[in-house]
């Protein structure tokens, strides 16, 4: 097979600090190449060079044997390189067809040639097995469907190389399966794929070859068959991790910390009951759309609840969000960027957000800045947040893992009794995941309860004392740690009911 894209001693420095160092690599036409590495390993920088967003400091890229020096994203598109980013570049107020043709409408007599546009779009959608009308507004499509529209756009432009950057983060399992089928089909059509993801199992499953980056260098490459997940992790972090999950350091206590009884909200939840004991990590598993996050929002007081009662430390939990925070609830939301952090505010300001009222002094509640600075500084040290000056550096400048630590630290400032962690490790690299797990263990050891919501079953079985499974807004059942079985838990998540006796024990 021929080489489609190659890098020769490629190097990129930012202010003298190398982000990619002397990288040499050939990408063969028709391969699916998995690219893995921790955050900051240089994946984004490399892709930005391929995409023409930034220019290399040194070295050379070749595209189909010719020297390739893109000056802008347009150059990359023109050569036949397409990106499917985590955040999609679609216009929600336009139709699918309009989105595909938006930069180059077919025209007849100065008007858009709608029939031609519709026909071409219908063909593309059919190729991708997306059964919707080309005139559908993108606004009304689910995330997975929108991604397929992006892929249709790439096909429309005859892309040879399609680069997927964390494409599954906002997809349901079914949408993910469909994406993988699509990728197989693209491969069968001779397209070359670069697949970047933190979900190593997916990378292994999809790829022909795997490339591992660390600290800007290519540390390993080879056929996907030669890698297994532990080997990939070792290559990424440069040492064996000694297991993916920290040892649990404590046992749940006997006293019930939190209890939910008969939570019902028409269309969302039906008769949900469960308890969490002090020092317990209760996993909540369910497919996308099972009502996991919806339940978390209801417990936290963000969404209405028609029937049912909640109690924390023996006292009923009522009122709005403010009251529930005061009672000892903390909620780490699944959307860190939009809901968990003020991205442009300083890290220290983010850390003090929840507890700020405790730092008021005098009747007018002027802030005691000294005490506040001391506490936020302490929190940074305590949480091992890797940052520069937390008083000036914005949260946006942190890696995903450190951002998540800021979110958790913000709640810790108030010493809550129950933590709801909704997908706390999403978009976080392997090393930082471990630290977040360790943190969950620390919270539990200190006597807090943790409701750990995740769509990665593996991390739940790795960390939780019990796992509760939801499906279509109902609790299907639960498992004690000794009875954890991936197969049974998954079967239950897909709707197979078992006696729910252990859950509301």
């Amino acid at each position: 097979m021929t080489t489609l894209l190659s890098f020769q001693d490629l190097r990129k420095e930012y202010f003298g600090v190398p982000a990619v160092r002397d990288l040499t690599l050939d990408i063969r036409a028709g391969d699916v190449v998995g690219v893995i590495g921790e955050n900051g390993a240089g994946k984004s920088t490399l892709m930005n060079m391929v995409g023409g967003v930034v220019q290399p400091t040194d070295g050379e890229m070749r595209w189909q044997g010719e020297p390739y020096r893109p000056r802008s994203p347009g150059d990359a598109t023109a050569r036949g390189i397409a990106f499917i980013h985590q955040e999609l570049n679609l216009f929600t107020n336009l139709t699918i067809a309009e989105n595909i043709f938006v930069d180059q409408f077919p025209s007849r007599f100065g008007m858009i040639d709608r029939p031609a546009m519709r026909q071409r779009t219908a063909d593309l959608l059919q190729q991708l097995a997306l059964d919707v009308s080309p005139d559908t507004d993108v606004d009304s499509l689910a995330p997975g469907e929108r991604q397929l529209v992006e892929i249709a756009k790439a096909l429309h432009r005859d892309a040879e190389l399609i680069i997927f950057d964390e494409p599954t983060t906002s997809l349901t399992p079914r949408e993910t399966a469909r994406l993988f089928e699509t990728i197989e089909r693209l491969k069968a059509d001779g397209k070359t794929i670069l697949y970047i993801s933190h979900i190593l199992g997916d990378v292994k499953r999809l790829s022909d070859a795997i490339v591992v980056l660390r600290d800007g260098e290519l540390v390993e490459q080879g056929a996907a068959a030669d890698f297994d997940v532990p080997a990939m992790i070792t290559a990424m972090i440069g040492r064996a991790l000694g297991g993916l999950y920290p040892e649990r350091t404590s046992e749940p206590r006997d006293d019930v910390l939190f209890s939910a009884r008969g939570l019902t909200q028409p269309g969302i939840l039906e008769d949900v009951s469960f308890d969490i004991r002090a020092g317990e990590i209760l996993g909540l598993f369910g497919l996308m759309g099972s009502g996991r996050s919806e339940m978390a929002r209801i417990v936290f007081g963000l969404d209405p609840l028609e029937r049912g009662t909640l109690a924390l430390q023996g006292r009923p939990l009522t009122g709005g969000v403010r009251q529930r925070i005061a009672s000892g609830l903390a909620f780490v939301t699944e959307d860190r960027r939009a809901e968990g952090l003020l991205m442009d505010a300083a890290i220290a300001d983010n850390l003090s957000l929840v507890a700020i009222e405790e730092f008021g002094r005098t009747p007018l509640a002027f802030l005691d800045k000294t005490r506040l600075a001391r506490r936020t500084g302490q929190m940074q040290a305590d949480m091992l947040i890797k940052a520069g000056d937390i008083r000036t550096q914005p949260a946006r400048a942190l890696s995903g893992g450190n951002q998540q630590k800021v979110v958790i630290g913000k709640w810790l400032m108030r010493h809550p009794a129950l933590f709801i962690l909704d997908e706390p490790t999403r978009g976080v690299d392997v090393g930082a995941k471990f630290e977040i797990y360790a943190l969950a263990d620390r919270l539990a050891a200190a006597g807090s309860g943790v409701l750990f919501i995740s769509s990665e079953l593996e991390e739940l079985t790795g960390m939780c004392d019990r796992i509760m499974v939801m499906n279509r807004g109902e609790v299907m059942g639960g498992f004690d740690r000794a009875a954890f079985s991936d197969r049974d838990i998954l079967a239950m998540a897909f709707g197979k009911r078992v006696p729910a006796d252990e859950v509301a024990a």
Partner: protein
Amino acid sequence: MNGSARDRATAVLARHGTLLLFLLIIFVFGTQVPAFIGPENLGNIIKQASFIGIAAVGMVFVLLTAGIDLSVGSVMYLGPLIAGFAMRDYGVGVAGGLVVAVAAGAVMGSINAFLIVVLKVVPFIVTLSTLFFFRGFGAYLTSSRQFDFPEEIRTFGLSSVLGVPTPILFFAVVALGAHVVLSRTAFGRQVYAIGNDEAAAAKAGIRVGRVKAGVYVTCSSLAALAGFVLIAQIGRLDTGFGEGREFDVIAAAVLGGASLFGGVGTAFSAVIGATMIQAVKIGLVFTGINLYLQPMLQGLIIFAAVFLDSLRASRLEMLRRRFIRPR
């Protein structure tokens, strides 16, 4: 199910809220004063709405890109004024005068576009400055005196074609033309794309600067045309002509459903909004409400309409929320 029937009803209400409010206003005034809904008065409303309406169609283009143009009131003044000089001093006819007015508007729009697109100053500040600049230039030209147009312009302004008054005709042509441009041309669809996500539009290879320049030129050209059509009915131009009208124009566009945040609205938004404002104005006169209370009532009605619209938006949002199990 009862619940879903009610949802459907609210969905219909929400989708056509503005139109229903419009009909309600007509109905209320009509029951107060039957003459209000006579064909003669309704024609009058549309005719008088055409002035704000034509400019509001242009404003919709700008609002769609999440921009704003505060200079339209001054363009309404300066555009026809330059046309007036051409007609009085250079013997240009009425048709020629119209072309000059629109061309002058296009030049003013280009100035706005240059400052916004090339110098990258925010539209609010740019058009606030040109609001003063264009009017000031007109005051300089006329030494702040009233400008009298040749008599023939009123013959044109008060004429009608097949019984349809010329201003209404212009209004209709502009609205239909704008509708075609917005919904059927690449330029129009790219306007919507930019309003939805400007950064993504740039990444998708749309020439954002060019499209944005286009909307400001369109807006000013139509504002100048609107001014000319109204002047043609009056025959003279006072220094205060068009002053403060930018707010009527923006209110009309928003009232009709265009969003200040871009990406939402159609050419017909402007038609409905402008007609609605005019209907309220005339209705208040008809019902004989204290003259001095009328501006306040107008303000209230505009607020109510836009408020209803925001309720409608959040209602639609709720309807779109996904349920995970049958209710």
